[in-house]
C-alpha cells in the first residue's frame, strides 16, 4: 500500500517549483530508503523473509512482495548508493539551471521511479510483474541518460542503451515463457521444479544472457561505455554502482535453483567473466574520457564478481562447501564494495566535470592543488578499486583468491588448469587496474594543468563532499574490520544457497578475514610511524623549494608533462591487435612548403562492438536496402503483387507445402 502512496506523491514533483525540486526529491528518496531498509535490515537480522501482498491485482495475479536475505542485501546496497547520489545531485544539478521546469521534473520523477523500480525488482518473484518492473527500470534510466539531450551523441547513446535493454528483456521473456510452458507458472520458485525435471543449460543461458546484458558482461557490454559518459554524474554513479548489480542479482536468483550440470554452467560463467574482466580493463587503459574509463572499469569489476560466482557454482558442483562459500561470499562482498568505490569515483569525476567542464583527461592536470579533498577521496577510491590492502576492494578479492586456491585441490586436471587460468586472469586484472588508475589519478590530479585554466577552481560545497567522505569512511571501515562486513554476506550465502552444506569450515574463515583487517591496521601503523620518524629526523634540516629537475631546462614544464596516451602507449603497443587504437595524424608531405597546423590524436573504438555489432547491423541495413523494392509508386505493380501473391499461395497449397 505504501508503494502506491509513493507513486502518487512522486507525481507532485511536477508541481513543486524549480528551487524546491531537488529537496523534495531527496525527501521522497529518504522516505523510500527508510521504508525499504527498515524491512531489509529486519530480514537480515532475524533471517525470516518478509512478504506483503499488494492490494492491486495485476492481470489476474496478485503481486506479492517478498524480501528474502538476498534481496534484503541488495536493497541495502541500492539504498545507500541512491541516497548518496541524490545528495550529490543538489549541487550538480545547479549546472543545469537553463533547463525548463518540465525537463527538471521529468528528471527527478524518473530518478525516483528508477529507485522504486530497483527496489521492486529485488522484491517481486512473480514473472510478469518482474518483467514489468525490470523494463520500467530500463525506461526510467533511459529518461535519465538523455537528460543532456542537446548533444546528439547523448541521444544516440541513450537510444542504443534502450534497445539493448529491450533485447535483454526479450531474452528474459522467452526464458519465462519456456518456464511457463513446462511448469505452468511464471514464478522464480517454479524454476526449482523446472530444473529438477529437464535440462538446465538452455534456460539458464537465456536467463544469463538476459541478465548479462544488464550486468555488462563482455560480449554484451557495448551499451555501457556509451551510456555512462552520456548520463549526468549522479545518474551514472547510481547506474554503474547499483543498477548493473541487479543483473548479477538475477543470475544469483537463478543459480540458487540450479540442480543439474552445474559444472558446465560454472565453467561458462567463469570464462565469460574472465573475458569481461581482462577485456574491460584492457579497453579502459587507452580511454581519454574519464567517465568512459570508469564505465569500462565497471565491466572489469562485473568480471571479478562473475569470477566469484563461477568459482561458487563450481564449488557447489564439486561438493567443495568452502570453495562455494568463498566464491559466493567474495561475489556478494564485491557487489557491496564496487557500489561504494565506483560511486565515489563517479562523484569525483562529477566534481572534476563540474569545475572544469571537460571530461577529456588530456586537458586536465594539477587539480590536487585546487581541490585537495576531492583528489584525496578519488585516490582512496582508486586504491580500493585496484584491490590494494588496507581498503575494501582487497577484502573481496582476497576471498575470491582463497576460493581459487582451495579450488586448486580439485580432482580432475582440467579443473586445476581452469583454476590456474582464473588465478592468472584475476592477477592480470589487478595489475592492469593499477596501471590504469595510476594513469587516471596522476594525469587528472597531479603535475601541472595541461590545457584548462584551473586558477579560479574552488572546492565543491560541503554538502556535496560530505556524502563522499562518508563513502570513503565506509571503504576504510570494511577494509579494516572485514569480519563485521562479512557477517551479513555469509548469512545471505548460507541461507540462500542451501545446498552449500553449512559445514564448520565454512564458518571457519570468519577469523581468517579478521587477520586481513589486523594486517591492514598494522600497515597504516607502520606508515604513520615512518612519517613521525621523518618529521623527528628532518626537524632541523633545511627545506627548499625549486623547480622540478628538467635536465638543464629550468622553466616550468607544462606541456612537457607525460600525457595519458603516452603513459598508456607502452601497454597499447603490446595489446595492439585487441585494442586497435587508431592514430589520426596527417604527415607533412615533402613538397608542402608551408604546412598548415597539424594535430595528433589517438582514439580507440571498442573491438567487440566494431567487429560483431556494427558489422551485423551494417549488413542487415544493406540487405534491407536491397529488399526495399515494393513501394515503387506504380499502381500496376501494386495490383501485380496481389495477383502474384494469390498465384504463389495457390501453388503452395496445391503442392501441400503450407
Amino acid at each position, binding site marked *: 500500500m505504501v508503494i502506491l502512496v509513493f507513486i502518487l506523491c512522486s507525481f507532485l514533483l511536477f508541481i513543486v517549483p524549480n528551487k524546491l525540486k531537488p529537496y523534495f526529491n531527496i525527501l521522497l528518496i529518504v522516505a523510500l530508503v527508510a521504508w525499504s531498509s527498515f524491512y531489509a535490515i529486519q530480514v537480515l537480522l532475524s533471517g525470516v523473509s518478509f512478504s506483503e501482498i499488494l492490494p492491486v491485482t495485476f492481470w489476474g495475479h496478485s503481486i506479492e512482495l517478498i524480501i528474502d536475505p538476498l534481496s534484503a542485501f541488495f536493497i541495502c546496497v541500492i539504498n545507500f548508493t541512491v541516497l548518496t547520489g541524490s545528495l550529490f545531485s543538489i549541487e550538480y544539478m545547479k549546472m543545469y539551471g537553463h533547463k525548463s521546469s518540465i525537463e527538471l521534473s521529468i528528471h527527478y520523477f524518473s530518478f525516483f521511479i528508477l529507485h522504486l523500480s530497483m527496489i521492486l525488482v529485488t522484491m517481486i518473484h512473480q514473472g510478469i510483474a518482474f518483467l514489468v518492473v525490470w523494463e520500467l527500470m530500463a525506461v526510467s534510466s533511459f529518461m535519465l541518460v538523455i537528460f543532456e539531450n542537446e548533444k546528439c551523441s547523448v541521444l544516440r547513446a541513450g537510444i542504443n542503451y534502450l534497445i539493448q535493454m529491450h533485447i535483454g528483456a526479450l531474452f528474459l521473456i522467452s526464458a519465462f515463457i519456456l518456464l511457463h510452458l513446462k511448469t505452468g507458472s511464471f514464478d522464480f520458485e517454479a524454476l526449482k521444479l523446472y530444473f529438477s525435471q529437464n535440462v538446465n543449460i538452455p534456460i539458464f543461458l537465456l536467463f544469463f544472457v538476459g541478465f548479462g546484458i544488464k550486468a555488462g558482461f563482455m560480449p554484451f557490454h557495448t551499451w555501457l561505455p556509451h551510456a555512462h559518459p552520456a548520463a549526468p554524474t549522479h545518474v551514472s554513479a547510481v547506474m554503474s554502482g547499483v543498477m548493473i548489480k541487479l543483473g548479477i542479482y538475477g543470475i544469483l536468483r537463478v543459480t540458487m535453483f540450479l540442480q543439474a550440470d552445474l559444472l558446465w554452467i560454472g565453467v561458462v560463467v567463469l570464462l565469460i567473466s574472465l573475458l569481461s574482466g581482462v577485456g574491460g580493463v584492457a579497453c579502459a587503459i587507452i580511454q581519454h574520457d574519464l567517465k568512459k574509463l570508469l564505465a569500462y572499469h565497471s565491466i572489469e569489476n562485473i568480471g571479478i564478481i562473475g569470477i566469484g560466482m563461477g568459482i561458487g557454482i563450481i564449488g557447489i558442483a564439486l561438493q567443495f562447501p568452502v570453495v562455494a562459500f568463498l566464491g559466493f561470499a567474495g561475489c556478494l562482498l564485491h557487489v557491496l564494495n564496487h557500489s561504494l568505490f565506483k560511486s565515489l569515483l563517479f562523484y569525483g569525476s562529477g566534481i572534476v566535470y563540474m569545475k572544469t567542464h571537460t571530461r577529456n583527461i588530456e586537458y586536465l592536470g594539477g587539480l590536487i592543488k585546487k581541490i585537495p579533498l576531492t583528489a584525496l577521496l578519488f585516490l582512496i577510491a582508486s586504491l580500493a578499486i585496484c584491490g590494494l590492502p588496507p581498503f575494501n576492494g582487497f577484502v573481496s578479492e582476497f576471498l575470491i583468491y582463497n576460493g581459487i586456491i582451495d579450488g586448486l585441490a580439485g580432482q580432475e586436471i582440467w579443473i586445476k588448469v581452469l583454476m590456474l587460468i582464473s588465478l592468472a586472469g584475476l592477477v592480470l586484472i589487478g595489475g592492469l587496474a593499477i596501471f590504469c588508475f595510476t594513469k587516471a589519478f596522476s594525469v587528472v590530479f597531479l603535475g601541472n594543468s595541461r590545457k584548462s585554466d584551473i586558477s579560479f577552481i574552488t572546492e565543491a560545497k560541503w554538502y556535496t563532499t560530505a556524502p563522499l567522505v562518508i563513502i570513503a569512511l565506509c571503504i576504510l571501515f570494511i577494509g579494516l574490520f572485514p569480519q563485521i562486513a562479512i557477517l551479513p554476506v555469509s548469512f545471505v550465502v548460507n541461507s540462500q544457497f542451501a545446498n552449500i552444506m553449512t559445514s564448520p569450515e565454512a564458518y571457519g574463515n570468519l577469523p581468517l578475514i579478521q587477520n586481513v583487517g589486523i594486517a591492514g591496521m598494522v600497515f597504516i601503523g607502520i606508515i604513520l610511524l615512518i612519517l613521525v620518524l621523518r618529521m623527528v629526523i628532518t626537524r632541523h634540516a633545511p627545506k627548499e623549494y625549486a623547480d622540478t629537475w628538467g635536465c638543464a631546462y629550468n622553466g616550468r614544464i607544462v606541456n612537457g608533462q607525460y600525457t595519458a596516451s603516452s603513459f598508456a602507449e607502452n601497454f597499447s603497443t603490446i595489446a595492439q591487435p585487441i585494442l586497435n587504437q587508431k592514430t589520426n595524424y596527417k604527415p607533412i608531405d615533402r613538397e608542402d612548403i608551408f604546412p598548415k597546423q597539424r594535430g595528433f590524436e589517438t582514439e580507440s573504438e571498442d573491438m567487440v562492438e566494431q567487429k560483431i555489432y556494427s558489422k551485423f547491423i551494417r549488413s542487415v541495413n544493406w540487405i534491407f536496402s536491397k529488399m526495399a523494392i515494393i*513501394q*515503387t509508386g506504380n*499502381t500496376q505493380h501494386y*495490383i501485380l503483387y496481389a495477383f502474384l501473391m494469390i498465384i504463389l499461395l495457390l501453388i503452395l497449397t496445391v503442392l501441400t507445402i503450407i
Partner: protein
Amino acid sequence: MTTLLIIIFIITLFYSAISGRMFTLINLLMIQGFLLFGVALIELRELNLLNLILILLETLIFKAILVPFLLKRTIRQNNIKREVEPYMSGINSLLIVSVLIVLSFILTFSLQDTFHKIIYFTAAFSAINTGLFLIMSRKKIITHLIGYIILENGIVLLSFSVGNEMPMIVNAGILLDILVSVLLFGFFLSKIKDISKDFEITKLSKLKD
C-alpha cells in the same frame, strides 16, 4: 443458347487483348454488355419480377449503353491520344490472355463442383484474369477503367451462376457500388488531367520510398 453467348463473350476477351485503339475496346465493352443481357434474360427466368428487372436494367442500360457513352465523351472532351500504348506487342498479350484462359479452365476443373455449369465458371475466371491483365499491361488510365469493367463483367457472370440466393437488396447495393465507383473514377479522371495530359500512369508515381 447461353453457352453460345458465353463463347462469344470469351472471343471478345481475345479481341480486347489485341485491340490497339481505345474505341475498339469500348465497343467490345458494349458487346459484352449485350451478351450479359442475353444470358441474364435466358438464365434467370424463374426469378421474381422485380429482381429480374433490376438485373436487366443493370446489364443492359448500365453496361451496354451508359458506361461506353461516358468513356467516349471523356476521351473526346480531353482529346486524349487514341492509341492504347501497351508495354508489350499485341502477339505477346494475346499469348498471355490465352494462357490465362487455359489456366482458368484448369482451375474450374480442379474445383470439381458438380452443382453448377462449368462454362459459367471458366468464362467468369477468364474475364477476371483478362481484366487484370489489361490493367497491368496498358499505360493509359482509361484502359485501366476498361479493364476494371471487364473484371466486373466476370463477377456478374459468376453471380449469375450462383443463381438466386442473393436477395434483391444485396444485388441493388452491389450495382450501386459499381456505379458510384465508375462515377468517382470519371470525376477524378478530370482532376488527373492537369497532372498528365494524356493520362499516362508513369506520371502518377511520385509517391514512393
